[in-house]
């Protein structure tokens, strides 16, 4: 007899908008505290205590914003595509709401990565912008986010909108390895990765430790804002259900 494949219980629970709304409400304060502490610590450490770069001087301190926002813009994209796939395959409402909520957050993170990169490029490379592989791929990431966001907000029918957004984000995922390997595949002005899983960072520990704190802080921050947005989305889409009515009346 064929054994039927079963996903863990929490996966099925995530299918319930109410359960997801409540669990996110419980997790939110902890992630908010972690994000605030880590980011405050990382900013002070990076701005005031880390040594200046011997070539770039103090402009290198932009790295503590630039690298975390670029990493998060890509992680957010992967989450958006995976959530989109889950909503396509299992027709899970909450997954679609997560995917929809990822788009505007990811777009602002991509804008932040591009803007800080341009500001850093001016004193370092002598120009705000070059049509370099990494920069161009990152700009395409921003356009993909804008595309997914537009699809979600322009199509009236939520199910059709979710499907269209999910398909676009899944097609666009080819851009992620292009961003990652662009600095290795092409001759580029952009410097190589600071962090790799297999090697020790080439930077001095006094420089990369605050960066690591900022990256973890940005992940917590992303979790917080994604949960805030998804919770607002759940309320709006579940407004006809009795638990939302009770929740509003209890306020």
């Amino acid at each position, binding site marked *: 007899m064929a054994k039927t494949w079963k996903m863990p219980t929490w996966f099925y629970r995530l299918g319930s908008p109410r359960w997801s709304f409540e669990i996110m409400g419980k997790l939110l304060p902890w992630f908010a505290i972690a994000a605030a502490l880590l980011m405050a610590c990382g900013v002070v450490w990076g701005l005031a205590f880390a040594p200046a770069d011997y070539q770039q001087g103090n402009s290198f301190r932009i790295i503590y914003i630039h690298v975390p926002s670029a990493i998060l813009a890509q992680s957010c994209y992967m989450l958006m595509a995976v959530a989109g796939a889950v909503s396509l395959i299992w027709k899970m409402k909450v997954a679609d709401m997560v995917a929809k909520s990822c788009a505007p957050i990811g777009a602002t993170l991509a804008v932040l990565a591009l803007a800080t990169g341009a*500001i850093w490029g001016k004193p370092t490379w002598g120009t705000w912008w070059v049509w370099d592989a990494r920069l161009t791929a990152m700009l395409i990431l921003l356009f993909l986010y804008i595309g997914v966001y537009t699809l979600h907000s322009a199509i009236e029918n939520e199910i059709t909108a979710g499907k269209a957004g999910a398909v676009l984000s899944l097609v666009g995922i080819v851009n992620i390895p292009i961003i990652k390997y662009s600095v290795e595949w092409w001759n580029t002005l952009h410097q190589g990765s600071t962090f790799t899983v297999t090697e020790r960072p080439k930077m001095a520990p006094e420089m990369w430790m605050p960066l690591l704190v900022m990256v973890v802080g940005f992940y917590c921050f992303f979790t917080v804002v994604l949960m805030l947005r998804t919770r607002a989305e759940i309320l709006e889409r579940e407004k006809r259900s009795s638990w939302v009515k009770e929740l509003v009346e209890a306020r």
Partner: protein
Amino acid sequence: MYFDSFTDFIDMGGHGLYVWLAYSIALVIVAFNVVSPILRKKQFIAEYRRRLKREQRLNERKASESTQ
């Protein structure tokens, strides 16, 4: 502390404008991402409550009309 004085810290070795511009944009984007969903949720709840009240008034009026 890497810098000798507060003015040194603000000046960032001549790169002050770049560094502080990058950090202010980051602050704006972080604040936007936190504030906008909170406002959206507040607005939703306020609208929903108004609708509930309106429905309640309507029901009361109907009830009083039917007793007359």
